[in-house]
């Protein structure tokens, strides 16, 4: 086989391989991480974070604005401390409310932010004071059971 045809085939092969990589990058995967521009970090403390994990999405009104970067336990407050990175384009009022929510019935847990009405916005490194813990199914069920049992006591059986 002459060298030019050989070069041509190798060129076709390499081009195909690179095209496949591009396909995997753009069509199959999403180039996340790099779309968070000039990120800054915020912190929120929770009584219970449920199944929240590092790299979980941070959403405001359903829009992805950042990701959870670190989860640790605060020894003095006995609370979980969630550090998350937010896109620098987005600003949040100081009375923003942080919740741990679940996408769908069995989906992954994410950090949902509800902006408040303050004029001032959170600066990088600030701590969100208003938080709501994750809903733990066992607690929910036990509350339901106790309230049912309490109902049974007040209204005696006929």
């Amino acid at each position, binding site marked *: 086989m002459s060298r030019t045809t050989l070069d041509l085939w*190798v060129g076709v092969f*390499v081009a195909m391989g690179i095209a*496949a*990589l591009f396909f*995997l990058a753009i069509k*199959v995967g999403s180039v996340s*991480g790099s779309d968070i521009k000039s990120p800054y970090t915020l912190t929120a403390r929770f009584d219970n974070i449920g199944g929240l994990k590092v790299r979980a999405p941070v959403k405001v009104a359903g829009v992805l604005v950042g990701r959870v970067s670190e989860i640790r336990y605060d020894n003095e407050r006995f609370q979980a401390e969630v550090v998350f990175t937010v896109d620098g384009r987005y600003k949040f009022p100081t009375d923003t409310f942080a919740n741990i929510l679940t996408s769908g019935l069995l989906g992954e847990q994410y950090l949902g932010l509800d902006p408040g009405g303050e004029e001032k916005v959170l600066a990088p490194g600030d701590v969100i004071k208003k938080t709501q813990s994750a809903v733990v199914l066992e607690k929910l069920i036990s509350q339901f059971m106790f309230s049912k049992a309490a109902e049974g006591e007040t209204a005696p059986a006929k």
Partner: protein
Amino acid sequence: MGGVLRKLGALAINGVWRLGFITRFFWMILLYSGQSFTRLHLTIRELYFSGVMSLLIILVSGLFVGLVLGLQGYETLQRYGASDSLGTLVALSLVRELGPVVAGLLFASRAGSAVTAEIGLMKVTEQLKAMDMMAVSPIARVVAPRFWGGVISMPLLAALFSAMGVFGGWLIGVVAIGVDDGAFWAQMQAAVDFRYDVINGVIKSCVFGVAVALIAVFEGYDCVPTAEGVSRAITRTVVSSALAILALDFVMTSFMFRG
């Protein structure tokens, strides 16, 4: 008892000796790579023989692996009413594991064995010695181009395998079964991260490329120069490459995909 212990000792010494030899051999290849790159067409020729010639088997097996993943994945997912995440299942299993591993195994048996046979036969017919006599380094002229041909081909082939597999999963899921096209791609894109999943898969395939190419050229170069020796070397290439790929895959997965 003494005989058994002696055999065990001989086995261990032989293993360590071969490990040392293959490391020195690897170092020699790297040393002579510069010299062999001055005649780039040698490497391009090997890229043709190990890369282009493996295209067909890689593309066809990628397609079929994707088709099977689509069928089996749908079968299980629809029990939980989660058939929309078929795209996620197919893409993640291909990009993270199946793409690099299966493409590596196929590459070892298709291209690795051919390289071993070629170098082994050159040794049997004393071509390597003849080159040495003419002051042409056989490592620069024969071994390094074949090594680099394999190292460059492997990630490209693995990417093609994964892409073809995703296409196969799409064919079964969307075209044949009727999973929603938008949900298929959207869920896939939401779950597959470029840096975490795709790049880690590419790193895996690069490591497999180095392992397979090194084992193939080493077994060829090290073979006993007889007909039987060459055939044994080819068998050893395929077996040790497969074991190396699977073991390295486990190690890399445990480092890459945690939590």
